[in-house]
């Protein structure tokens, strides 16, 4: 009984923290971007402008929730839910702390990859159901970008799996007690980071929504809370990729004992969320063909090399 109640607390707590983080990231991103562009950003509403989150949310809720008459209605409504659901599902396997874990899967890493693949559906279906040429173009770009970057995202992760010998994220964290995997798997980390940016279609790889070319890409026809779902999904995606980086390469909740594990996890995740925002602040968007070329001609061979080298070194050391 006690155990079951604990689970509910953890699930509720994780959901609460995550959704609030996603909303708070709206504020954080705008403030950080402003900081790096010598501006202030939102600083009027409430302390440090924090209430802008509230204002944005209220605004999103009260916007007209419009379904275009030419849209495929069922799919149109369904698509935004997919992205949030799939990202939230991925969080189930992430160990936030020594005992703060929703599901202790022995295939946790595969589950994460599967869920991020399902996330592609929301982009494709959203763009397809909008029945609009820009949306469709964005969706096509999104699909090919996310699918191709997923390939070597998975391959880059295999290095970690080789080192730890498990797909279970909790055990991967435990295996990093001696040394964080950032040191033996630096190349894998870089590839995973780039693939993660592409996977969440964040800037500089925001090619599916490239507003200067495609208006807003796959979510051009969305308004109100349906757009809000894409929005929240994107910020949840950043959080997810950041926490995956922390879990896989930076020792998850491991850290000096003067702070509890969860705090270490949150701190490390925050650093990577900031890195995502810094990327947005400083990088130009590549052309579409450049993105694909970079993926398949540079990152893909590199991740294969990384996998081969890791495997060979492990074999030799054995």
């Amino acid at each position, binding site marked *: 009984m006690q155990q079951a109640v604990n689970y509910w607390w953890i699930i509720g707590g994780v959901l609460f923290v995550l959704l609030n983080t996603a909303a708070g990231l709206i504020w954080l991103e705008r403030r950080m971007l402003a*900081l790096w*562009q*010598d*501006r*202030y950003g939102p600083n009027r509403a409430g302390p440090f402008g924090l209430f802008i989150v509230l204002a944005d949310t209220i605004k999103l809720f009260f916007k007209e929730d419009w379904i275009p008459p030419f849209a495929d209605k069922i799919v149109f409504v369904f698509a935004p839910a997919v992205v949030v659901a799939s990202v939230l599902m991925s969080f189930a396997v992430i160990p936030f702390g020594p005992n703060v874990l929703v599901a202790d899967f022995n295939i946790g890493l595969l589950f994460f990859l599967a869920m991020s693949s399902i996330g592609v559906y929301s982009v494709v279906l959203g763009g397809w159901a909008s029945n609009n040429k820009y949306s469709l173009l964005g969706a096509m770009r999104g699909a090919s970008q996310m699918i191709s970057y997923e390939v070597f995202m998975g391959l880059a992760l295999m290095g970690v799996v080789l080192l730890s010998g498990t797909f279970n994220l909790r055990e991967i964290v435990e295996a990093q007690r001696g040394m964080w995997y950032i040191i033996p798997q630096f190349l894998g980390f870089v590839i995973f980071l780039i693939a993660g940016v592409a996977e969440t279609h964040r800037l500089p790889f925001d090619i599916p929504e490239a507003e200067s070319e495609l208006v807003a890409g796959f979510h051009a026809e969305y308004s109100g809370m349906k757009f809000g779902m894409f929005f929240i999904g994107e910020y949840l995606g950043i959080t997810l990729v950041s926490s995956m980086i922390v879990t896989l390469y930076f020792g998850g909740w491991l850290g000096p004992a003067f702070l509890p594990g969860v705090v270490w996890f949150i701190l490390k995740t925050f650093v990577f969320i900031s890195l995502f925002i*810094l990327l947005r602040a*400083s*990088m130009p968007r590549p052309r579409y063909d450049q993105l694909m070329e970079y993926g398949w001609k540079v990152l893909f061979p590199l991740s294969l090399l990384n996998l081969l080298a890791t495997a060979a070194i492990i074999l030799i050391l054995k």
Partner: protein
Amino acid sequence: MFSLIRSMWLVFLHMFHKRETYQYPEEKAPLPARWRGRIALTRDPDGGERCVGCYLCAAACPVDCISLQAAEAPDGRRYPSFFRINFSRCIFCGFCEEACPTYAIQLLPDFEMAEYNRQNLVYEKEDLTINSQGKYPGYNYYKVAGMTISGKDKGEAAKEEPPVDIKSLLP
């Protein structure tokens, strides 16, 4: 690749730069003296109106936001009987200031004229006239112009020779 990392680093360093923003309502931006803002009618050093109602400003105005009616005072000085600027139309181009032959109409460094009611943006002569000489202190049109007004005949203006008596042969 190196340039990407370098640009990320340079952007990161901006964290420690001074922010460019003026926190406007609390902290005002310094406006230059020639800022083209609110339009005002200035006075000459004696406190009289400079405007002589020549309509040049109204003619120069590209959006036709100035309307006035010239009148003549008993002493011979011309003045506008009404002078009206519709600031909801005004584009603050400053052409009226350039056109004005008597330095009467001038643009001031002030832009905070927002109103809730559009009609409040129509400024009458009383709203426009300020108790100042504006950018040209010491200038008094009737003191330098050759025009006759009561108390100042031809040739009595500053830097003006008395008129030549064409009826006389004496040098």
